[in-house]
């Protein structure tokens, strides 16, 4: 058998004729799925930014509550809002650069590869744009609280703390164990996502790209 035979077999196949489905049914199903997809994307886009705004609100409230002595909180707020801004900017960038499936295969694969490489870069460097600013904001917040306590001279609080080893232990456990563990966990989870999800997909697409171009 040769190519012409394959073509003949291919063309002889009986394919379903006509639309095969009622347009109203399809429209209903597609619109439902489109709305669900749009809602999911919208939630994903705003969730991280809203979390940052909420955290900034907590810092701002502390500042307002404590008074002008807590002015260094402004740096913590700036760091948290900076992370939110970064998330928003990333989402806009992703929306702007995303190509639909109606572009030629090579262009689509190249765009997907570029996006995956960008995501890999972000996740591998999460300490620089997320963990470090978060840690900085928490450190500034904590330092500000201590500073205010010292300025406002509340020796009874310090002496009460010193006389309460359980409270001291909780504070040290939070600062020395819980926070570092959370940061380490975030770092490990992101590296795992790169290894388990992004790298295999990237490899697959690079192979596809290579085979389309060579």
């Amino acid at each position, binding site marked *: 058998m040769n*190519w012409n035979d394959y073509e003949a077999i291919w063309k*002889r196949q009986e394919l*379903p004729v006509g639309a095969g489905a009622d*347009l109203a049914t399809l429209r209903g199903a597609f619109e*439902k799925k489109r709305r669900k997809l749009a809602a999911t994307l919208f939630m994903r886009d705003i969730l991280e930014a809203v979390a940052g705004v909420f955290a900034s609100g907590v810092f701002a409230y502390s500042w307002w509550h404590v008074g002008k002595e807590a002015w260094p909180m402004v740096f913590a707020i700036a760091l948290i809002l900076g992370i939110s801004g970064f998330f928003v900017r990333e989402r806009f960038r992703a929306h702007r650069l995303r190509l*639909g*499936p*109606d572009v030629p*295969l090579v262009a689509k694969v190249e765009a997907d590869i570029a996006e995956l490489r960008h995501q890999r870069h972000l996740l591998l460097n999460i300490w620089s744009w997320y963990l470090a600013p978060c840690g900085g904001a928490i450190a500034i917040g904590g330092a500000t609280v201590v500073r205010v306590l010292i300025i406002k001279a509340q020796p009874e609080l310090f002496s009460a703390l010193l006389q309460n080893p359980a409270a001291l232990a909780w504070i040290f456990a939070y600062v020395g164990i819980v926070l570092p563990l959370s940061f380490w966990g975030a770092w490990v989870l992101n590296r795992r996502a790169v290894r388990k999800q992004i790298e295999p997909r990237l490899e697959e697409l690079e192979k596809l790209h290579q085979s389309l171009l060579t």
Partner: protein
Amino acid sequence: MSPPANHEATFQAWLEEHRGIFVKVARSFARGETEVGELQQEMMFQLWLSLPRFANQAKPSTWIYRVCLNTALTWRRGAQRRESRIEPEADLSRLAADAATPAETAGNKDLLEQLYSALQAMPPSERALVLLMLDGLAYRDIAEVTGMTENHVGVALTRARKRLAALLKGVTDELE
């Protein structure tokens, strides 16, 4: 934003005229009735979403091939994908059933099944090229769908055809 009414008419016309493309691409890239049906649904959904961007700059068939092949090439199987699929409605289920069991004659069906099996054994890029070639697209049209140069299409197709022939050799020898 949902497509306006004229897009709906276009969509219906495309389904009427080019439904075979969905079936052939789905059968080449997915295995089993369920997956073929799911992939067809996904391709139709992506085509629906792409309608507002269609501005008659490409032939409808080129546009549909692009959407279908891009969707098939980036389609991820798995539970997560299956969970997010459109709930099977009567008409959509019928589409999948039609696609998986067309009423080919027995001999043709055997050969056709072997051809689809061979296509599925090929690398995805070659599979796409051979599918377009079997559908009778000219090199220029294939280049437009894939984004490759015409020369490159020729070179890649020669390689893909050799691979297809090698894959089908045992089968055709048996049949002959």
